[in-house]
Structures are given as C-alpha cells and as structure tokens.
C-alpha cells in the first residue's frame, strides 16, 4: 500500500513539474502590454505623417532650448550666472566633457537624425511625397537642424560617420531646403516655401554663395517669420525658464545695458541715459523689495536686468524671418563694398521695428561695426550669435572670441560611442 502511494505521489509530483514548466512557457501568462510603448513599425503608417513631423518640430525646439541663453554667454554677449557651468561659459571654455554640453550635442544630433530619418520614412510611406506638405516640413526641419549644427559644432558627424568639416552641414542642409522648397511649391504651401528659402539663403551664404543667398533672401517677405514653437502645456516643450529668469541671464554689463555691478548705486534718472533697442528688450527689476535691505541696495531690493524678448514658457523662438533676410542681404552688399546698399537694407530691417534709419557709414571699417551690431541685434537670442562671432573672427573682422572657444566640440558620448571618432579619444 505504501509502495502504491509513493508511486502515485511521484507521478503527481512529476505531473506537477511538467505542468509548471508548461505554464512557465505559456505565452499568455507572460504577455504584458505596457502603456506608452510605440513600436517602430507603427510609424510606417502614412496616417502618422503629421505626428512624425510634429516630433521633428518638438525635437528641434528641444535642441534650441538650452542654447538660447547658454550661447550668448559662451559668445560673451551677456552675463549668465546661476548654473554650475557658467564660469566656464563666461570665460568661453568649451570641451568635450561637461554634461550639459553633451546634452546639447545630443539633442542637436537627435533633432537632425529624427528629421533626416523621418524624411526617408516618409519617402517610403507617402504616396504623394513630392507634393505633401508634411514631406516639405520634414525636409525643412532636416535643413534647419543641419544649419544649427553647422553654425555651432566644430565638426559634422552624420549618422555615426567620421568627423567632417562643419560646413558639410550647410551642404547637406541646402539640399534639404531645396527639396523642402520644391515640395512646398508643389503643395502650394507658401509658409514652408518661404521658410525653406530663408534657411537656404543662410546656408548658401555660409558656404560663400552670397549671390545665391541674396536670391533666396529676396524672395522672403519682410514680415515673414518661421518659429520654433514652445508651450507650457507640455513638460518637454516649455521654454527653458533660465532663458528669461533674470537670476540667470542678465543684460547687466553687456553691450545692451552697460551698467555697473549690483553693488553700485544707480542714479534716479538712469533710464534717460539709455536708448532702448526694441530688438533687444530688457528691463530692470527689483526682487523682494524689503526695507530690511535698504542700506545695501536702492529701494531695498535685489536688482536685476533680465531680457524680456522671451517672458513666458510659451514664447516661440524665431528660426528664420524677413528682418534676418534683409540683414543677410545687407551683409552681402557690404561684402561687395556697397555701403549705400547695406545701409538701405539695414534701414528696411530697422523699419520693421519702427526704428529710426541709420546714416550711411563713412568707411567700410565703420560699416562693419554698424553692421555687426545690427546683425547681432536682429537675431538676438535666436541661437545664431555664436556663429556670427566665430565667422567674423575667422575673417579678422571681430575679436570678441579672442582666447575663447569658437565652436562646440563633439560631445564626449559621441566620441566614446562612435568607432569612426577614435582619433578624438
């Protein structure tokens, strides 16, 4: 009887083991659908083309976001403080390592890859690719992301490839802008068409094709503007608070507000000493007015000079616009020695801001100084100034970046992970 029971029990246990192993391999038991997962294949559906382009827009805005304030500091335009890296930025020190700069490099590259890979995906999925506005937008973002990298990065690294001259991005960007313009024209989308021309005008200029640049720029309406949108409704697309938080970005001591440091007492009529430029708006602010501190600062508050071009997290950043095109054409005229033409175009641009016209400079040297101020003011806090200073420095027209970084090195993560960049390690 005992033997029979033991046998029965062994059979039972063996059956249990089989059942266990069977159950553990059961697909249903281990099947899990987690929220938030979007598989790659699902993006091949043509109905998702708008969302693919929206992602490009979002990643492009994210790529611009931290650099708007960061690079005015790097390029010695304004004083920035508050973050741990500010000291290095203030002295114009850039290298491969600092993590926020790695993040900057990474977000630039992500935006570029998302746009260019999206273009390839849309070529496969859209039957009307050649006349589809979404396809035009995708090419537009591919162009602008290349322009962003060309204007700021020391080298072009594309899709895990080797390091190439930064100007490669302008060549690649021009091709995307051209395709964007063609598709937008076919689609009858003037907005994208003008943006593509504006983008192409700039990258053509940076390649030395000033005639081509002028041709494109002339076709962009003066009042036109293409922006990178931001919204406080989402977490990732809020304009970075530090762009407009006066604690971090202040005009104090800059070319826009050559004021003395915090400890200096201001005269009561200080405002009368300044001519405010509507393209570079700033204000003076007191924080926490408290009689307790009256002996130390005027009015007892903490004084700051914040920029007010962007004042909320919903403010959009201009990417290309008519005023910029006029100034671009002015630079082309200046390079041709046409000081009258330059002045005319600059004044057309100033008129857009209801500013008084400038007199024609007496010399080319004076003209360059006038022009540089106008150019920098026109694209102020639009992530363009670092490139302007760097290219002018290279031409011997500006020395603001003397002893400072002229471009953004390849990020450390790219160097460590890209086998084609072994020479940089």
């Amino acid at each position, binding site marked *: 009887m005992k033997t029979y029971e033991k046998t029965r029990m062994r059979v039972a*246990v063996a059956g*249990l083991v089989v059942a266990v192993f069977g159950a*553990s391999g059961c697909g249903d038991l281990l099947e899990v659908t987690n929220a938030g997962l979007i598989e790659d294949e699902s993006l091949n559906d043509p109905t998702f083309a708008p969302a693919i382009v*929206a992602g*490009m827009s979002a990643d492009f805005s994210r790529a611009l976001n931290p650099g708007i304030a960061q690079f005015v500091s790097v390029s010695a335009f304004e004083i920035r403080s508050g973050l741990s890296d500010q000291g290095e930025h203030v002295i114009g020190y850039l290298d491969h390592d600092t993590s926020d700069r790695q993040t900057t490099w*990474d977000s630039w590259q992500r935006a570029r890859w998302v746009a260019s890979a999206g273009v390839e995906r849309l070529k496969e999925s859209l039957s009307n690719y050649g006349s589809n506005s979404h396809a035009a937008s995708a090419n537009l973002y591919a162009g602008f992301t290349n322009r962003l990298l060309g204007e700021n990065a020391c080298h072009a690294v594309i899709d895990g490839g080797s390091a190439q001259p930064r100007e490669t991005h302008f060549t690649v960007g021009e091709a995307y802008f051209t395709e964007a313009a063609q598709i937008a024209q076919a689609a009858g989308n003037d907005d994208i068409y003008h943006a593509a021309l504006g983008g192409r005008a700039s990258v053509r200029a940076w390649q030395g094709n000033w005639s081509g640049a002028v041709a494109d720029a002339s076709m962009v309406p003066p009042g036109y503007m293409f922006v990178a*949108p931001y919204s406080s*409704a989402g977490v990732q697309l809020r304009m970075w608070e530090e762009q407009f938080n006066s604690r971090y970005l202040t005009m104090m001591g800059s070319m826009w507000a050559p004021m003395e440091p915090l400890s200096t007492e201001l005269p009561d009529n200080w405002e009368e000493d300044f001519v405010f430029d509507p393209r570079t708006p700033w204000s003076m602010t007191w924080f*926490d007015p408290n009689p307790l501190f009256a002996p130390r600062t005027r009015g007892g508050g903490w004084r700051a000079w914040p920029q007010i071009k962007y004042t909320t997290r919903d403010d959009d950043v201009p990417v290309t616009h008519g005023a910029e095109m006029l100034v671009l054409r002015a630079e082309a005229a200046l390079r041709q020695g046409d000081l009258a033409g330059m002045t005319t175009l600059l004044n057309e641009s100033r008129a857009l801001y209801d500013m008084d016209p400038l007199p024609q400079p007496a010399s080319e040297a004076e003209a360059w100084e006038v022009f540089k101020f106008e150019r920098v003011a026109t694209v102020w806090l639009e992530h363009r100034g670092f490139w302007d200073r760097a290219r002018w420095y290279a031409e011997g027209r500006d020395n603001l970046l003397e002893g400072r970084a002229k471009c953004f090195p390849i990020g450390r993560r*790219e160097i460590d992970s890209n086998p084609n960049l072994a020479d940089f390690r």
Partner: protein
Amino acid sequence: MSHRRVIPFVAALLLAAPSLGAQQVTGRVLSQTGEPLAAVQVFIAGSGIGALTQQNGRYLLLNVPAGTHTLSAQRIGFQGVTAEITVVAGETLVQDFTLSEEALGLDEIIVTGTAGGARQREVGTAVSRLDARELGQMRAAPSLSQALQGQVAGLMMTQSSPQAGAAPHIALRGRNSVNQGDSPLVYVDGVRMYARRADTRPSGGGIDAQYNPLAHIKAEDIERIEVVRGPAATTLYGTEASGGVIQIFTRRGSADLPTQWSATGSAGFHTLTWPGPDRTGNSRFDGAYTFGNPDGLGWFNCVDRVTSIGQVYGDITCPADGDWVKPALIQRYNLQVSGGSGGFTYAISGRYGDEGVPLDGSGIGQGRSSQFQPLEGRVGYNKDGGVRGAFTIDFAPTLRAEWTSSLSLNTQKWAPSGAGSRSVFNAPMQRGFRGAVQVDGQPAAGLHFSQGEHIDKRRQVLTGFVMSHIPTSYFDHRLSVGYDLNVVNAEHFHKVGHVMRPTGQLNQIDFEARTTTFDYGANLRTSLGEDISSTTSAGFQAYREFTRRTNYRVEDFPGPVAKPTLVAGAVQTIRADESLEVINAGGYVQQVFGYKDYFFLTAGLRVDGNSAFGSGFGLQAYPKLSASYVLSDMAFWPSDWFESFKLRFAMGDAGKAPGAFDAVRSWSSIVSGDGEGGFTPGALGDPDLGPERSREYEVGFDASLYGGRITAEVTAYRQTTYDALIPRQGAPSLGFLTPQSSNIGTLQNQGGEVTLNVGLLRNRLIDWDVGVTLSLLESEALDTGGEQIPYGFSRFSGTRGWIREGYPVPAVFGMVVTNAAELAAPIIETDGYFGASYPTNSWGFRTNMTVLNNLTFNAFGEWQRGAFSQCQTCQRMVLNQTFSPCFPALHAQQQYRGEDAATNPSSSFWTVPMSEWTGDPSAWNQIPAGIRAMCSARPEDQRPPRYYEKNDFFRLRSVNLSYRLPDGLVPGTNAATLTLSGANLLTFTEYWGNDPEARINSEFPGNDYHSMPAFKTYTASLNITF
C-alpha cells in the same frame, strides 16, 4: 523563602487560578548564565500539551494528566533538553530548565526556496540569521535596515539620508549587475514585497532622500531574519534573484499559552554635529567659513561666514538664538499581544512613532528682522504607525492555514537637503556669491523652511495567506498567495511668496506599486536503503509587479492657498506618467540525497519565463549543485571540545531580468510646441535580449567550539555574471540617446566573509561575548563588450564612476594630480584611476556583556575601508572660496592676482587668465601642486579632481545599556527592561566632506553634495511584558 522564589510561585498560582485543582507543571527556563529565556517551547511530547515561556522565563502547563511524562524545552539557537517528570494527581510540579546556546544550530530549519525549508546541516551555502534576541540588542536601531547594517557579512548598505523614513539601499556581495540593480529580493512571511527605492522626489531638487518600503519593517515585529547571499543559494528563486534574498519572519503566537502582552515606549532625540572626532584641532568644516576667524563654530549655525578675501555672508533668516540645529524629539511606542488556544494562534502588534529632524526654523529671522514669519510646524518629521497581525489555524493535524497582514501608515516631511537650490544645506553652507535661496545676495535658507514643504504620505498593505498540508510523513506541500500594495502621495508645495517660486507651485507625485505572489511547492521524502535519504522538491512560482508613477505640477496660484488642488493654478501640467507591468513565472525541481545524515548532495534546476525577455528569447534554466559534510558527526571528531563543524560547497546560477521595454525598438510620444502629438526616439531595442546569468561558486565552513563559546562562519565565493546587460551608448548622431542594454558583458565578484563570535566570559556573574564580522570584496569587469560605461553621478563628468574592463564595478576615474607634493604647476592625468567606489573591506565589531543577568551593555561599530566617493560639497565650497583647507592657497592666489582680485574676486578669478595676474607670485609658488589643483576652479589652469577621495571611516553605530528591573518592581508585569541607547556617537575619518556616508542617493559611487550627515541619536526605552 526569598522573594526570588515567592514571586514565581505567586505568579504561577495566579496564572493557574482558573484551573486550580487540576495537575499542572510550571517552572522557569534560564540560560547557562542564569538569564531568563523567553519564547522557549516547553511541551510534553505526543500529548499536544505545551507552552512558550514568557519574558521572565516562566511557563505553565495546565491539565497535565497524572503520570510519568517526558518534558522537553526547545528554542531556536539553544540545545534542547528533556526531563522525565512524574505528575501527581491534584498537584503542581515545578520543573526548571537550563538551556545551553547551540551556536551553530545544525538542525534548525532555514528557508531555501523549497516548501518548508531544510535543516541547516543539509544546506551547502552560507545563510546568515538574526533572531529576535539579537535584534533586541539593537535598541538604537529601530528599523530593519539599521539593525542589519554591519551585522551580516557581505551586506553593504548605503543611506540616502539620515532622516527617519529614508530607507537605504542594500546590496549583498557587491554589484553583480551594471544596469539592473543589485537589490536583493525581500520576502516577508513568504510574500515577496516591493523592496526597491521609489523615487518620489520632485524635479528641481531640494530633496535627496529616497523612500523604500523596507522602512515599514520594524525590528520589534521580527522573529528572525535569514539573509541568503549570492546566486549559489538563490537559484530556486530564479530570475531577479542574483542579488540575493532576505527572508523576514514576523512574530507568531503560540497555542496553549496565556495571552501575553508586551509594550515598549521609547523617547529620545536626534541631534546633528560634524561627525568627526575633532571639532577644534584638525577640523575641516568647523571654521571653514570663518577665514581668519578662530571664533567660528560649527558648520551649520548662524555665525556669519567669511570668505578668503573677507566677504561676510550671514543668513538673514537665522533663528534668534543663532543656531539652526536643535535636538529633535523622538517617541516610539509598540504594543504586542500574542497567544492562542486549541489550534488557533495569534500575534497582533501596533506601533506609532514620531521623529523629528534636528533643524528648527521656529525662530526664523527673529534675531535679525521681524520681517520673516516663523515656521509653522517642524522642518521635518516622520510619523509612522501601523498594525500587524499573524494568525494560524490548524484545521487538522495535517493542515495549517496562516494569514499574515500588515497596514503601515506614514507621513514624512522631508527637511530639504542635497544638491537642489532649495536645499536647506545648500544655502547656509555655500554662504558665498553662489548661495541658493537668497535675498539681496545673502543666504536665506529659512525662507525655504517657512515657504516650502515636502510631504510624503505613504500606505502599505502587505498580506499573505499560506496553506500547508502534510498528508503523510513523506509528503508535504504548501501554497502561498501574497499581495503587497504601496501607495505614496508626495506633495512638494511652495507657497505663494516663496523666494524662488513667487506665484507658488505644487508638485504632486503619486507612486503605486502592486505586487502579487503565487507560490506552490511540494516535497517528497523517501529513503533508499538504511543510510541514504532522499528529498525531492518541486514547485511553481509566479510574480507580478505593477508600478505607476505620475507627476503633476500646478503653479501660478491666484493668491495664497493653504492647500491647493491640482486645478488651483493657472498652469497645470502632467510631467510624467510611467507605468510598468512585469510578470515572471517559473518552476523548479530539486533533489537532495543524504548519507547517514552527515553528508548531503543537492541538485536543482529552475526554469523561468519573464515578460521582459525579448521575443527571440525563450525560457531560462538555472542549475544548482551543492554539498554539505558534517564532519563533527564522524566518529574520529573531537566533539568533546569541537562540537560542530560543517564543510559546505555550492555552485548555482540565478538571473536578473532586463527592463520591461529594453527588448523593443520604440518611440515615445511628445507634444510639439504647437500642441500636436508627435514621436521622439525612445529605446533602440534588442529582440534577443535575455536575463543576466550569475554563476557563483561558494565554499566555506561553519564551526562551533568549546560549548558554543567560539563560533565561526567562513565563506569564500566567486560569482561571475555572464551575459551581463551592458547599457551600450549608441552614437547620438544615430538618434537614440537612451543607452541600449545588450547581453555582452562579464562581471566578476569574489571575496570572503568571516563571522566570528567568542564568549570571553560565561558565568553567573558576567556573560561577555565579542564578535567580528569581516567582508572582503573584489570586483572586476572582465568584459564590457568594449564599452566604457559611465556610472553614477554625472553632472561633473571630469571625474566619475566608470565600468571599465579590468577595474572594479564601478571604479572611480578622474583627474589625478601626478605631482601633488611638488611646488610646481599641477600635472594632471585626466583619466587617472582612483580606486573602487565601494568598501573593499568592512569590519563589524560588537560586544555584549551581561552582568548579574540584569545589566546588559552592548556596542557595535563598523569600519569601512577602500571606497572612494565624491565630495561635491567641497568642490562647491572651493568655488565659493569658503573651503578652509584652501585658504592658504586662496590667499596666495589673491596676492598673485593683485589688487583687483581682492576687490572683485569672482570676476577676476574667472575672467583674467593666470598669465595676466600682476601680483606677487611668491606665496603661490610655495603651494604644492595638489593643493593648487584642488583649490582653484580655473578650467584653463587645471581641472580639479572633483574631490574624489577615500572615505574610510570607523563609526560607533550603536551603544546600548539595558537593565532588567527586578521582578515585581513594576506591578502587574512579568518583566520590565529599561534601555538607554545611543547611535552614531563617534566617527573617525579623514574624509573632508559632510559625512563619509552622506550622499545624494544611495548608489555607488557616493556623492556628497550638501547632503545631510548622520544624526546622533539618544533614546531611553522601557519594555514591559504582562
């Protein structure tokens, strides 16, 4: 008759009152040294009559049939004894026992992953065990984690904050996984609980402490703990068990025992001081802010700070009495009742505790201005309450049902600390031109005290049902089902008017973790002839874990709001919504052969499936093999003085599952600035992704000599993690920024563990034990697939943790000054190796002395060596020129820079290159290169080595003095014990920062970034049983 005899006699009469007239047996059970022993099971074999002794060692058996019986007394950790008794009708028999400690306990049952466990002698791996008595010696350590710290060889523990409620991170035998965590699995009464960190910190900083549900487990509720280290021992737990297993068993009641109550009340206080031993001589932070001012005291008081050039910074919100630090009161209460009747037992406990943080803002600014409002309420606290119940019903002699359930409620107000700009430790410590919460450029930490609060409300329900059935003597099986629910509602609120959020802000983080456990196991015992025994075990286990974390933010309130809703502000955002479900299911089979009960050979296999495995990946099998040989049972063994010796060997595999999304190439959703939904790259994906497999070889012995006076557990191990999931950073130019885990690595940990206890004196006067625990750990990344993986804190990447081939896991690399002692410009090796980030050897020292059975003193200290951690506090202070070790160098630099530097140090420091300094360089030339590098933050001059330094330390973790009051002194009680405790009373270290154990998270490598140092804690407690 002395009172020593009268009291037990009277007590016995009282307890026996309901059944006077029937035969009964009573008595007292004492240890060898005369100490009364509680929880000793006294029973008449085969009769169903038995009882547990109470705190005073007394027991009472009722209705004992007249006649001769064998009376047994047994307790885990002691050698059982029996006595032949003859009970006379109508009389009471007194039978006392004296039990000797059985240090090794080869026949104790321990849990091994199979149903019901196995005898210690059968097990081929090391299993550490702490029982209630040992835990009871740790009065200064009320939480489980504190009680374990340093007590178990091979167990590493790191804290994210000293605040009560901030649970630690536990790792066993080092890090054997790069990216999947090294947390052990934790089971409470057979139910797996969520025992990892839950990140409920707000974005934007201010809180560096982390929460772990382990904080809800209190030492008073624990009957015993078993710590199973390494894959060789955890194979049957399968995937996710390579980090080890901690089994917690809560207190149970006993049938046929009169209801027993136990109450404990504790009161005391935390305080905060620089933990180093020398506050005046070689002090570092003492006076760090008072350059040239010998009167500077303390590092966190209201003394104005003076930088190296004489700039004065005073916190304008300092309390009137000039010090933030105030003792914070502690109160803890615990009430337990246990008992049983017939086939039913119960144990119910309740607790409440309230502990503050030794910082006080109630006098904010009152000494300097009436402008500031004093703090309403405390800066931080932890209020913890809960109930726990354990019930057992024997439906039949062969069928038992157990139900254990607990409810924990906890409210935590965090005192802000850490790297965040709102950290209370940031503002007062920096004191310079970079101060965080400022008014008029002056630190104003009190504003954050009074205008912001960070409150976590937590609930945990842990319940488990176990059914055990033993239908025959050779077969038993068990089914257990468990459920663990953790809910955390964290609110981080900045009131309208907050210095940094003037329009107010509420960050709400809701975290939920639900785990469900199903476990069935069966054992079949047979014999193959006279000498060979066989136990076959098989079982099935399934585990489901669901976690969800959402983060809402609402800001820009229209006006002052005492308690805002999520729609109270103009801007409302959902910042995060993450949910994950993971299911693991598997089965095991194990065969144990025993030869003459002294040699055992065990082989087992576990097969697992997991929802996170890639589609191209099937089931995983984990084998094990172990042997144990009880040499002391052999005839030749000198068992008269060397009573127990067991050799053991084990080999086994266990796994670690990949992340839930790691196998699939995926995109994440993103909303563009135009409000349109879009896609952004998520994870690159790897369809062939599988678990990591850790294989461990372990060999060791357990020994007990001289009647248990000397016991030793010695183990050497080597564990190798194959197919280690290495996060591979794809090139950012390929779009996907998140590193992708792939099974490409091999890691190795090897080390040794020694636990040695020596009974120096054991007599009726003094019982004195000392013990040493040693953990040695050496890890190496054997293969990382060519990757160099940055690991740990990354903001300052010049120096950081790395996982690199040939180095410890993780190792610390950074900028090393190769000519540190030379009077020359520093020569920097930009990628120099510092060392391991974890302690390579840890020593635990403990002593326990009992005098006259009443007065007990015990102390425990820990010495950790070999780890490097980052002192970012030091680095930040250098930037602020408030780091006293740098003052000579800063003085020299000041002279070298010239007059302009003295009047405007920050701008000239940053903007004027050294080549343009125009002052006197002579003093600077006398500064050694190492100090120059450390004390300057000029990137062009050097890249400071980011203050990675050795953080070796010795800390006296706990000191306890207990006095068992004479019986009857407290009326109505069986026993009463008064205990005075102190924690972290002494620390010896050469570390420069806040605290060698302070860190902004509980990971390695540590990063002390304005982190809160350990509290010194003093408590007095009274425990009574009645």
